[in-house]
Structure formats: structure tokens, C-alpha cells
């Protein structure tokens, strides 16, 4: 906010001068004869140019009368060849002709479209008892290796399906398919993250089984995937010890959105300067609820805890589904009883 004339954003500041640029591109400077919060009237004339909505630009100067007061955020009116002109219309802009334009209230979240698709995915997961995870990390944290080992360990007990997100190539899906489970690659092209619509389309094709584990490997990126809900039960952030321990502070959104952090490549700890305790402390600073499991996808260290977490999650989903089914069956039985009672009556 320009404190001199009350124009809104977009001001460019040059030290020592009150030079500023209005959003419509006009630049002007005010005389610095301000006293406190108001102009004193003496010699408070100034000139400025501004552009009107019809494209015309004019420069004018005016003097303030003894009684004229500018307050710090007040718009001011001044004479233009006899016509009153208020700099701040309802839109907060120099916009004469406001009468023909009007305001439409919207109040919708920008991500509402994505959230709608995410809700559809989530409903499908609930109906089918699918435990869906959104795995997020930087490129090179070892996500795909971790997935391959996880799948090898669990595929005899659980039905597993994988959605792979990468900007280009289907290398990762091919790697997953060698483990024998179905995998579908999504190439985001120019995009930097998976969104709920893409995952919904992948679900149509992949058709994961009831009571299965669905692993969604997001694009390697610690920024954008944080904001896009895919309908998953949890986001799992993977941080490897070959990265900096301050990543949770540098990319707080992701670690805040995650429920679990896997600290991967712990077999390399003797060879790197990664400070494990500090990494966990930083991550919990951003997200106090964050669970942490230390693993090595190469040696299998720490995998018992990770696999137990996954199995508990799957069991939870299946129980929830059974409860829903049981309550629906009860409801159907009640309704049938009512119907037969009314038929008899």
C-alpha cells in the first residue's frame, strides 16, 4: 500500500524517494511533505499522471486546500475538468464505468476441482477396502528400489498394485512389473506432480483388487505433490541419508502433509555426514505428528517396522470396509422387515 496516495499493490520503491508505480503501469512521485499521518495543507500540491480504463492518460496537478486531509490509506477524489474522479472504485482499481460491470461472489478453493476427484478416489478406496499410499520424495531417494523390496516381501500375503508417476519414460513401471505385480505408468509430461484426476483414470485401467495395497509413487519432487490430494490414506515422505538433513525445513509443506517419513539408505550412514537426530528433529518441528521409520532398501534393515506399518494399515482398511458392509446389511435387513410388515399390514 502506498501510504502517500493510497494506491494498492505493485509499488516499486527506490530508497529515499516516494517513487511508485501503480498497477496500471503509471509511475509518479509525491512531494515528501508529509507530517505525521496526514498532509498539512501548506504547499501540498502535487502532480501525477494516471491511465483511465478507456486508455487515456493524463497528467494533472492539484493543490490541497487548508482543510484537505489525506489519511494513510484513504482514496482521494479530485477534480478533472469538473468531473469527480475517485481512484478507488469497488474493485480497488481506477475503473470508471463500474456501473456496467458487476461483482460475482465465488468463494471456491482453487484446488476444489482436484479435491472433488480425490474424494471420488477415496470413496472407491473405502468401498473396496484398498489401503492407498502416496509416496513422495526428491528424485533419487530410492523410492522405486524401496517399492520393489516392499513388494517382494508382501506379495505372497497381499494383493498389491502400483501407480508410477514420472515426467517421462516408463522405466519405473517396468521395474515394478518384474516383481510380478501390476503397475501403470503415468507420464505427466510438463507437469510436476500427479493429480487426483490422473490417478482416477489410472484406477479405471489398473482395477486394483478389493482389500489390496495401492502404492502411488509420485513424481520425484518435494514441492508440488504436497498440495494435490490423490485420495490416499497417507502421504509417505522418503528422505535418504545422502541428502541434507535440513530438507524438512527447506520443503516444509511436504513433511507437513506426510504421516510417515521413511529415512532411507541408512546402510550408508557411516560414509556420509548426515545427522539422523537432527533430521528427525527438523521434521517434527514442521509436523509434530510425523512418524519416522529408518530403513535401508538395499540391505532390508528396518523393514520389519515398515512392513508392519503397511500390514496394520491394510488390516485397518479391511476392517473398516467389513464394518461398513455389516452396517449396510443390517440397514437392508431393517428396511426389508419394514417393507414386509407394511405389505402384510
Amino acid at each position, binding site marked *: 500500500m502506498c501510504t502517500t496516495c493510497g494506491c494498492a*499493490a505493485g509499488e516499486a520503491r527506490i530508497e529515499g524517494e516516494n517513487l511508485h508505480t501503480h*498497477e496500471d503501469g503509471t509511475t509518479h512521485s509525491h512531494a515528501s511533505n508529509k507530517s505525521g499521518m496526514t498532509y498539512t495543507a501548506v504547499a501540498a500540491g502535487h502532480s501525477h499522471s494516471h491511465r483511465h480504463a478507456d486508455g487515456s492518460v493524463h497528467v494533472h496537478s492539484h493543490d490541497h486546500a487548508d482543510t484537505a486531509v489525506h489519511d494513510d490509506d484513504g482514496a482521494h477524489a479530485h477534480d478533472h475538468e469538473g468531473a469527480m474522479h475517485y481512484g478507488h472504485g*469497488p*474493485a*480497488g*482499481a481506477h*475503473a470508471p464505468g463500474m456501473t*456496467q*460491470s*458487476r*461483482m*460475482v*461472489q*465465488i*468463494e*471456491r*478453493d*482453487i*484446488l*476444489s*476441482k*482436484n479435491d472433488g476427484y480425490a474424494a471420488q478416489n477415496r470413496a472407491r478406496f473405502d468401498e473396496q477396502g484398498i489401503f492407498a499410499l502416496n509416496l513422495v520424495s526428491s528424485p533419487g531417494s530410492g523410492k522405486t528400489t524401496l517399492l520393489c523390496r516392499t513388494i517382494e516381501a508382501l506379495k505372497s500375503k497381499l494383493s498389491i498394485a502400483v501407480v508410477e508417476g514420472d515426467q517421462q519414460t516408463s522405466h519405473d513401471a517396468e521395474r515394478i512389473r518384474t516383481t510380478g505385480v501390476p503397475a501403470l505408468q503415468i507420464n505427466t509430461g510438463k*507437469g*510436476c*506432480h500427479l*493429480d487426483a484426476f490422473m490417478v482416477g483414470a489410472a484406477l479405471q485401467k489398473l482395477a486394483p483388487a478389493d482389500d489390496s495395497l495401492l502404492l502411488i509413487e509420485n513424481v520425484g519432487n518435494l*514441492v*508440488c505433490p*504436497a*498440495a*494435490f490430494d490423490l485420495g490416499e490414506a497417507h502421504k509417505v515422505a522418503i528422505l535418504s541419508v545422502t541428502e541434507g538433513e535440513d530438507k*524438512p*525445513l527447506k520443503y*516444509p*509443506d511436504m513433511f*507437513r502433509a506426510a504421516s510417515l517419513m521413511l529415512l532411507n539408505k541408512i546402510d550408508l550412514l557411516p560414509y556420509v555426514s548426515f545427522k539422523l537426530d537432527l533430521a528427525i528433529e*527438523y521434521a*517434527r*518441528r*514442521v*509436523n*509434530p505428528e510425523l512418524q519416522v521409520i529408518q530403513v535401508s532398501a538395499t540391505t532390508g534393515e528396518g523393514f520389519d517396522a515398515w512392513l508392519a506399518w503397511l500390514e496394520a494399515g491394510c488390516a485397518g482398511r479391511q476392517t473398516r470396509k467389513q464394518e461398513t458392509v455389516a452396517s449396510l446389511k443390517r440397514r437392508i435387513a431393517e428396511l426389508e422387515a419394514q417393507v414386509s410388515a407394511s405389505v402384510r399390514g
Partner: protein
Amino acid sequence: MHEMSLAEGVLQIVEDAARASGDDAFLRVKTVFIEIGQLSSVEPDSMRFCFDAVTRGTLAEGAKLEVIEVPGEGLCFNCNKTVPLAALYDPCPACGGYPVQPTGGTEMRVKELEVE
């Protein structure tokens, strides 16, 4: 971060509103007012740039994107005060403690449109 996707999201909302406007239909959008929280990790400048790019050839072509920045606010778990918060991982400005749970300034929403 993903301002291009977000700008497309804004445009979708604007187009939905135009379709839903019925008898009171509008043909052109002059200004789009959006609220962006300080903690939402959206860069307003990048958002404006992307918005200009995605609105070309649409009813919002040339429309101005007015970004209303909403300051961050959080509840400190340490001193139990509601405090202003500049970034997600910042300590409490009142007591220096952690963590501070964000309670405001995470929004990204389309507030209103100026149309004709």
C-alpha cells in the same frame, strides 16, 4: 510451486461460474480476486504470470488477477497463544517455542469476479 496448475484451476472456476450464471450471464471477466495465504507456498507474481498465460483465448483474457494476501497465523503449542506466523517451520514469535500449528494463511481460493 505449481502455479500453472493453480492458474488453470482458477480459470476452471471462472468458466464454471460463467456456465452457471444463466440469465445473468457474463461475457467477459475484468478482474479475478483470489485469496492466497502466506503459508500456502504460492508466489503471487508467478501466479499472475501463469494466469495471463492460461487465460489467453478465454473469456478471462486480459483480466487482472488481484491477489489478496492473507497473513499467516498459528497457535503455539508451547505458550498456547495465537501468533502471527511468517513461515510454516518458524518458532513462536512470542515465546520462541515449537511447534506452532498454522490456523490461518494456508488458503488458496477464488473470492469474487468483476465481470461485464
